[in-house]
């Protein structure tokens, strides 16, 4: 094929206006300063001799020679891989049950998909100790009845257990969606040619659903690999992310090892994403073809239904365990060496709404600002990418999306290093201001908000804008009067998602909180949960966080549904 040269007049028609160029430059500058620069600083420090700017590999040499770091590296890989494996064990039967059978439990299983959004895993970690720990409810009962104890929560086991229970819905949601999108004719064609049963599943159904599974699995791997707070709260220090944090906080910001570990974290998460992209290449089957309809669902026979409900209830119990334990703990006076608390009180909530209400206020402000920044950037980038011919506009998209590959702890370290040297006129370093927390949160959540805005804009037919321009509206006025109103649902959904996840984010903020008065809720939770006396108020704060995020998630669901309904009845694009 030969490239068809664009005619000059057409090129001019699509070239950008000065306003668009200015907008693109402003966004680029923002991303460069608050994403690229901190990450580049981390990488730069890792490759230079301490205190100088001489290139060196000696830091990596030290890393490889250190028995602790190599063990941490291995542990991080081991925990991530095992979490993916256990999460798959939980997700596979549920996905299969809900997509292949006409099954009443399916609706319950689908709502499980929202649970990871609702509670950060480190909150669950403490709660899980109470049920599954060495002296937790389950082991006490097991000891009474059978005289055995199981080490669910000892060392790395605990991290794997908490993470896989927490993150398995990512696999469930992606795999179920992939299974549901398979055209029923794909299965029928195989049956027609003589295939059935497990062979049919292995040769046709599973390969077609594989992209969904891989997408979920790589997400779980990266999330677990980067998680900082869960291992710390379970007192597991020999993993990479906790090591990076401990190096920087205990030895100091000048110590190069924290940066070396950060680079290793970035490499691991880029590698995991690259591998899954590689495995998925050429497999983006849009199998919902003209026929559509999803796989045939079968009614369960009685013994199958019993088995099915058994599996669902067991997994549901496991998933709800941390939430239930947290709720009990928030009302408990003393809960130790007994299956249930000794007595109940409301004192913890009193404390949370009294002296700790500052955390809640800070969280609302930070998450609101971060969500606001995200949707402004998200709409602007989506518009530049989809509706203009600006040279290099994809770079904005790539840069914003690249934030996915930057672990929170790395971004935190980068901000500390980059902005500590910059001081305000009164002498306070920029990194000590609470606004850096907001910026870090905004950068971390930007990829998700951008996807939401991108999708919302993509659904709007260009002809709606052309009609406005044809009737005399300028580009800017068209955006304001046509594009943004039509995108409202998507924008709001993006905002609420950013807000809800920023509200419980810890890995980047843990580094950046300089004083207790600036701390957000997740930080307060972490501080409370570290001491035995603080667990009660911590749990109460956790319940508040869960309710806050649950309310937001429900709200975004309502908004999306309503805007879709309104658009569906109003006009068809």
């Amino acid at each position, binding site marked *: 094929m030969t490239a068809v040269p664009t005619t000059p007049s057409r090129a001019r028609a699509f070239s950008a206006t000065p306003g668009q160029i200015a907008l693109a430059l402003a966004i680029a500058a923002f991303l460069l300063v608050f994403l690229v620069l901190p990450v580049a600083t981390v990488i730069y420090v890792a490759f230079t001799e301490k205190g100088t700017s001489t290139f060196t590999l000696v830091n990596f040499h030290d890393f490889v020679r250190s028995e602790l770091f190599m063990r941490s590296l291995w542990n991080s890989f081991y925990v991530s891989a095992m979490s993916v494996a256990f999460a798959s064990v939980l997700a596979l039967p549920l996905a299969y049950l809900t997509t292949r059978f006409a099954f009443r439990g399916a609706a319950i299983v689908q709502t499980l998909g929202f649970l990871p959004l609702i509670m950060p895993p480190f909150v669950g970690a403490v709660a899980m100790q109470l049920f599954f720990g060495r002296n937790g409810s389950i082991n006490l009962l097991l000891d009474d009845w059978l005289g055995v104890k199981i080490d669910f929560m000892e060392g790395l086991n605990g991290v794997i257990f908490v993470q896989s229970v927490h993150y398995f819905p990512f696999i469930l949601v992606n795999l179920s969606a992939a299974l549901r999108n398979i*055209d029923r*004719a794909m299965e029928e*064609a195989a*049956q027609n*040619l*003589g295939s059935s049963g497990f062979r049919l599943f292995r040769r046709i159904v599973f390969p077609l659903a594989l992209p969904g599974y891989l997408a979920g699995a790589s997400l779980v791997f990266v999330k677990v690999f980067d998680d900082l707070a869960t291992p710390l709260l379970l007192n597991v220090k020999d993993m990479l992310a906790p090591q990076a944090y401990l190096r920087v906080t205990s030895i100091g910001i000048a110590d190069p090892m924290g940066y070396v570990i950060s680079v290793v974290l970035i490499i691991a998460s880029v590698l995991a994403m690259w591998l899954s992209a590689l495995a998925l290449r050429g*497999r983006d089957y849009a199998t919902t073809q*003209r*026929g559509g309809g999803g796989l045939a669902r079968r009614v369960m026979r009685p013994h199958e239904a019993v088995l099915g409900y058994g599996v669902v209830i067991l997994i549901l119990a496991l998933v709800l365990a941390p939430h239930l334990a947290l709720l009990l703990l928030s009302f408990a006076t003393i809960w130790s060496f007994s299956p249930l608390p000794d007595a109940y009180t409301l004192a913890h909530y009193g404390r949370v709404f009294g002296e700790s209400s500052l955390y809640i206020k800070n969280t609302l402000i930070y998450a609101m600002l971060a969500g606001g920044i995200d949707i402004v950037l998200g709409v602007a980038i989506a518009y530049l990418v989809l509706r203009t011919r600006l040279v290099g506009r994809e770079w904005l998209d790539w840069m914003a999306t690249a934030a996915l590959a930057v672990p929170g702890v790395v971004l935190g370290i980068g901000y500390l290093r980059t902005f500590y040297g910059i001081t305000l006129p009164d002498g306070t370093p920029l990194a000590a201001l609470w606004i850096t927390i907001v910026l870090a949160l905004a950068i971390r959540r930007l990829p998700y908000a951008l996807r939401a805005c991108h999708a919302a804009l993509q659904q709007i037919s260009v002809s709606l804008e052309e009609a406005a321009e044809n009737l005399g509206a300028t580009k800017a006025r068209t955006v304001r009067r046509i594009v943004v109103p039509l995108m409202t649902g998507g924008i709001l959904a993006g905002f609420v998602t950013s807000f809800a996840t920023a509200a419980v984010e810890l890995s980047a903020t843990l580094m950046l909180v300089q004083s207790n008065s600036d701390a957000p809720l997740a930080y307060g939770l972490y501080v409370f949960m570290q001491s035995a006396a603080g667990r009660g108020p911590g749990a109460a704060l956790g319940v508040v966080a869960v309710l806050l995020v649950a309310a937001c998630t429900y709200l975004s669901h309502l908004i999306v549904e309503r805007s879709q309904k309104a658009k569906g009845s109003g006009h068809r694009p």
Partner: protein
Amino acid sequence: MNATVSLTRPAVSVAIEGVNLSYGDNHVLKDIDLAIEPGEFFAFLGPSGCGKTTLLRLIAGFNRADTGRVTIGGRDISSLPPWKRDVGMVFQSYALWPHMSVRRNVAFGLEERGVKRAEIERRVEAALDLVGLGHLAERRPSQLSGGQQQRVAVARTIAVEPKVLLLDEPLSNLDAKMRVQVRRELRDLQQRLGLTTIFVTHDQEEANTICDRIAVMNDGVVQQVGTPMELYEHPANLFVAGFLGTANILKGRVVGSGAERGFEIDGQVRFPVAAGVAIPEGSALVFRPQHASLVDANEAPEGALTLPCVIANREFLGASIRYGARIGATEVSVDMPFQSGTDLFEIGSAARLTLRPRSLHWLPV
């Protein structure tokens, strides 16, 4: 098993006997009885929702009848699951598996049957050559055009040498030009293989051009079975008359007797009807636009039945001109052949509608 795809098995008959099927209160198939001859190219023709695809999927085993049975070559297959029926189906969406190459798609059914590797290779080659796609064997389905995908779907099905070939609207996803080409290829292929084939379509032109016989279906009922010409010439009811081609359908009643006998429409227009013509009670008068013609108002052709009319509208169709001729309150369509230089009737002018008595049908309402 045989080495080539050329049909070495004798063709078999398909019989559908007393089939009823309901989805809840929705009675989708009603007392279907059909006998399809060995080697016949047979069509299920009808509007969407008439039950034709449901009937086809019943033969393939994807639907289960409430009553009745399906036999292939005299053997009852009603209780067999889809994978044991040995009927090949080409899906409307083609259903090519995107994770397999063309070659692997075509080999699938043979692998499932446990055919030996060398044999599989040969038969895949043969099937792909038969549809002219041997050179594209290593491509993925997504790299093929719509017409090529359709041919791969056919090759995949005939590679297993099914007893019967089922085609579910195989041309509906192709553009108009491809459709004409592919339907000829399908007909050609079916003739070469001599395979009993059932073709589902809502397009009467498709059915007319390639099928030996057609079952016209509506509302879950088989309306009429016959060759395309039989259906066109002698429709059994108003639905068949209206669905195959255009028809003027005039409702009215028989009045008078002897020389005064006529068919009265709206209580005013009267078609003269000879005494010998039997008209069942409650019939409608049916004739096709090209079986009527228009002459000048003052002419009166011999042996034809004529009525004065007024030209109400005129449409140019290319080979012919379709006039709307108004007789009293009734308007009928009349097609006149068009050649350059033909004098046209002007809208609003008076004319005479003439009809040959033998091209009139009297069909129950």
